[in-house]
């Protein structure tokens, strides 16, 4: 009796021995180690070697990285693609935090049809990005695409154009289509955050004679900070990893003339389509830079938002 008692107290909150625990964890650990961890660590090492086809050559220190910024075509393509990723992030952030937030606020006031609107706004988010991209490429087709048809029907003939054929508009199509697909997520997330704000705060402030805009700016908006942080991180990761929508709208070459090129496409092209003898070295350098950048900034945004939150409470 006393033996079991001491055992109990020593093990409060623990019911699995280390050995049993390991048996439980092992299947997941093996799968994760073989198909995620090992490739990830190996991929980083690839970028520090020179390659001939699939044969690894000498340790080349940072040569592959230098190539990216000094040799053509990479010298032009890397900044061009990176700029498009940034546009995508900024564009999607603006859309989600204006249209998305606006819709969430409007929905929050709504008594009926709330679920109905939520469902409709979320549907594009669930559809495959590739399908979304191809669908919009048909919608915007100069041949008999509905978008130009509508523009002409309402007398805006001047606006009707080959949206994806024109380098000046093509990237904005990518930005819009991406934002269109993603907006349901912030609507739901902001909706949940708005629902979590105690009504008493708002009531008290309104009794003090504040306007509703003041209350939104001073009370609602700051209390949304955690949700905005989540949306920012996910939007950042999504924008930097963008692949399927640009692929569907501009092909693997980022047509027209690299106007829809993004870093993931550049990585894919360099690794699998370029036929360059050092394709593995160069593409691994792109992957490593992108990897470090995405992880670094995501961690930074999370840290920054935590700090902002702590300041508020």
């Amino acid at each position: 009796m006393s033996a079991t008692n001491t055992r109990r107290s020593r093990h409060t909150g623990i019911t699995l021995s280390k050995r049993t625990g390991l048996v439980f964890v092992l299947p997941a650990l093996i799968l994760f180690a073989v198909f995620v961890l090992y490739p990830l660590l190996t991929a980083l090492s690839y970028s520090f070697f020179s390659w001939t086809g699939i044969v690894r050559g000498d340790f080349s220190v940072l040569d592959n990285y230098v190539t990216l910024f000094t040799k053509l075509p990479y010298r032009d393509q890397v900044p061009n693609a990176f700029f498009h990723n940034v546009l995508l992030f900024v564009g999607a952030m603006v859309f989600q935090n204006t249209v998305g937030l606006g819709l969430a606020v409007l929905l929050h006031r709504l008594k009926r049809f709330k679920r109905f609107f939520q469902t409709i706004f979320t549907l594009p988010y669930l559809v495959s990005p590739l399908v979304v991209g191809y669908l919009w490429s048909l919608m915007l087709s100069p041949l008999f695409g509905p978008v130009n048809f509508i523009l002409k029907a309402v007398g805006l003939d001047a606006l009707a154009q080959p949206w994806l054929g024109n380098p000046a508009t093509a990237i904005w199509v990518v930005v819009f289509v991406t934002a269109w697909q993603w907006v349901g997520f912030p609507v739901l997330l902001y909706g949940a955050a708005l629902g979590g704000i105690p009504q008493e705060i708002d009531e008290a402030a309104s009794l003090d004679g504040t306007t509703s805009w003041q209350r939104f700016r001073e009370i609602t908006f700051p209390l949304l900070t955690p949700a905005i942080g989540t949306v920012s991180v996910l939007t950042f990761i999504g924008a930097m990893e963008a692949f399927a929508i640009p692929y569907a709208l501009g092909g693997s070459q980022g047509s027209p003339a690299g106007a829809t090129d993004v870093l993931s496409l550049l990585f894919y092209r360099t690794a699998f389509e370029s036929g360059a003898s050092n394709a593995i070295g160069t593409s691994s350098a792109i992957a490593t830079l992108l990897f470090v950048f995405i992880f670094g900034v995501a961690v930074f945004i999370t840290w920054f938002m935590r700090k902002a939150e702590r300041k508020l409470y």
Partner: protein
Amino acid sequence: MTSTTPVLTEPAIDIESAGPSEGTPRRKRGFSLKDATASTLLWVYALISIAPLLLMVSNSFRTTQEMASSPLGLPLAPTFSSYQKAWVTASFETYFVNSIVVTVASVLLSTAVSLLAAYAFARTKSKLFATIEALFLSGLMLPVYLAILPLFFLLDSLGMISNLWSLILVYGALGIPFSTFVLASFFRQLPIELDEAARLDGAGAFTTFFRVHLPLVRPAIATVIVFRFVPVWNDFFYPLILIRDQKAYTLPVGITRFFGEYQTDWATLFAGLTLATIPLVVLFLLATKQIVSGLTAGMSK
């Protein structure tokens, strides 16, 4: 209730209708300009959100000639011939079956191994397990797809390129971070007394897990399954690189090929896109609750 439009605000009205959820006094006052604007805006965006998808479905029942003459017409004489063409001639049948096999198998795999691991994370307190859990969690933020080259060589050396098993194993592994994250937080909410009671009744660790805990985390299992199903079904990157044989294409890669071949056959293109979307719509209708609550998980704390 508050409004985002500063111009229309009249403080007197706002004080009276200050209780947002008990907005009945205000509602009784009838139709207000603010409400009308709000619902108009919601309907306008609803249209922007859904119109392309409705058009996709509606055009899949029309012929390409009809679309050329009136891009926005309704399928007044619906025809299923595009579906037949996409399904049989354009091999969508093969792609569809491959996608189903890969998605179902990989989601089951990642859910099964994650359930076991998550249980261990929730019921142990050693540094070793905390480290493994942190390792899994880091997978949520890492752009793991960038590790495709070594993965390709690994699978190639195992002779698994163009084999559906390669996708099943890779997606299975990729599902572990999200699945263990959700499941472990559910297991942690279950009171430890449950374990103690089961142990007193003579049940071992595995019996306790299968008989006592597993039934209790069913809602979490549903969430995990739904939320892994969508990205795996939709993924395009891995099959684009790991599958080189058309017979083993999943839907997304099949669609890229199909768009090259049927460029001007719009009716078939729309039918193909619709076919690739149907399972997601079915899933959404079956699990709207899980999807809406899952997307906002952690916000209701």
